[in-house]
């Protein structure tokens, strides 16, 4: 773990929940009446985000949707440069995405490379009718021409800082929160 010299709370549990509600509302408005909406969470933290949005869609908006997960490790453009090789989680999309509207979910979008990889991975599963992107946080710094369709909060973060989203259902996180942390320049 890198030593953090500075860390501040950007969104607390309540504020985070409100963000997710807004995301769900926006998706519901765009896909009202849809019967094959699919949310696909990008490992790691896009997964709890997708499940929470799906829950809100069902409870608040009575929209049924299926949830899948996608592991983009093998589609990354920087796979060859890892000092420590990541373990594969595997993708799990137990439904047919042909001709379905798919909303990719990720907790943060930064350079856009992860989403590029996710789209490539998704296309190996079938041919969706359309692919949209829902992110909790949009942190400027795009290196690819990819923008979220639905975004919870958009912020500017300096290069030496990062956005850390925590979901209670993830073992190491233990809470719901969004932090902005500064890291030493050597952190990969």
């Amino acid at each position: 773990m890198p030593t953090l010299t500075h860390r501040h709370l950007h969104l607390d549990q309540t504020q985070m929940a409100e963000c997710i509600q807004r995301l769900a509302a926006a998706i519901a408005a765009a896909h009202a009446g849809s019967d094959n909406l699919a949310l696909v969470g990008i490992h790691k933290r896009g997964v709890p985000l997708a499940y929470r949005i799906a829950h809100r869609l069902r409870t608040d908006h009575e929209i049924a949707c299926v949830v899948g997960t996608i592991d983009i490790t093998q589609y990354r453009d920087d796979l060859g440069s890892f000092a420590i090789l990541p373990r594969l989680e595997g993708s799990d999309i137990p439904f047919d995405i042909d001709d379905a509207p798919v909303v990719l979910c990720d907790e943060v979008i930064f350079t856009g490379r992860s989403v590029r990889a996710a789209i490539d991975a998704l296309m190996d599963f079938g041919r969706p009718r359309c692919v949209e992107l829902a992110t909790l946080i949009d942190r400027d710094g795009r290196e690819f021409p990819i923008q979220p369709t639905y975004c919870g909060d958009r912020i500017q973060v300096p290069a030496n800082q990062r956005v850390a989203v925590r979901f209670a259902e993830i073992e190491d996180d233990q809470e719901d929160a969004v932090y902005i942390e500064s890291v030493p320049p050597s952190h990969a």
Partner: protein
Amino acid sequence: MTPRKDLLDIASLSNEEIEFVLANAAPFKDLFRRSVKKVPPLRGRTVLTLFYEPSTRTRSSFEVAASRLSADVTHFDVELSSVVKGESILDTVETLEAMQLDYIVVRHKQAGIPNLIARNTAASVINAGDGWHAHPTQALLDAFTAREVLQDLNGRKALIVGDIQHSRVARSTSLIFRRLGMDVAYLAPGSLMPRQIPDEIQTFGNWQDAFDWTPDIVYLLRVQSERLDEPFFPSATEYHNNFGLTDARLKVLSDRKLWLMHPGPVNRGVEITDAGMNYERSLINQQVENGIAVRMSVLYWLRPGAAPAV
């Protein structure tokens, strides 16, 4: 998991590395159910199969695995008549080095050839079987298959039957089984049992004693007539009656619901009968299927150009 350049044997792997390869094989196996059975990690990389001993199944298993990882696959046609000793091998390796290959999968009848090649190339070398010494990808797929049916291998027992002395499968698979917590025993005629084996492996000279030991898995080895240069036992019939899985012995497996494994290809009538091939708890086909997933996991894990392991 720190990248490693070569996979030469099981002995040089840590338990952590073994678990990593086995864990990653599962998502690769899931891939086979999809219509697009391809993923891109090895896109732009070249995998070359260098088989000095003939083999269609292992070679094609590697080739399918490499293709599914989007690698370019090619085979080096070795003129078997011109290959006599190791000098030719290093000359061949120099040629291959000039081609800037990423992965070389080697099978050879002399032990240690993959080690020699690995020391002399920056490419990742995978041992697909070297003489009597090692067959690490076979061992990995055997462990993966055993775990599929038994989940936790700790305390479980595997009986390996056949020509232990000349078997690289026996050496590698018994080692990986032991690393994962199993007890292993060998059943072989005295002439095919090595004189000195690790203390923790039990030995039996007949099926009755072996069955009394209550194995969970019975692993049959192929009787390799093409590798024998002396008469170790009088005839195939004698072998079958004394050490083969006769129908009577198959009944014991069936009654006790034991699992059956075999690395293939099978000698019907020698180590196994037709009935044995149809046994409902035979894992032989799963071994083949898992072979591709495990080999994909190995190719994903190895890193050409990494520092050669100690």
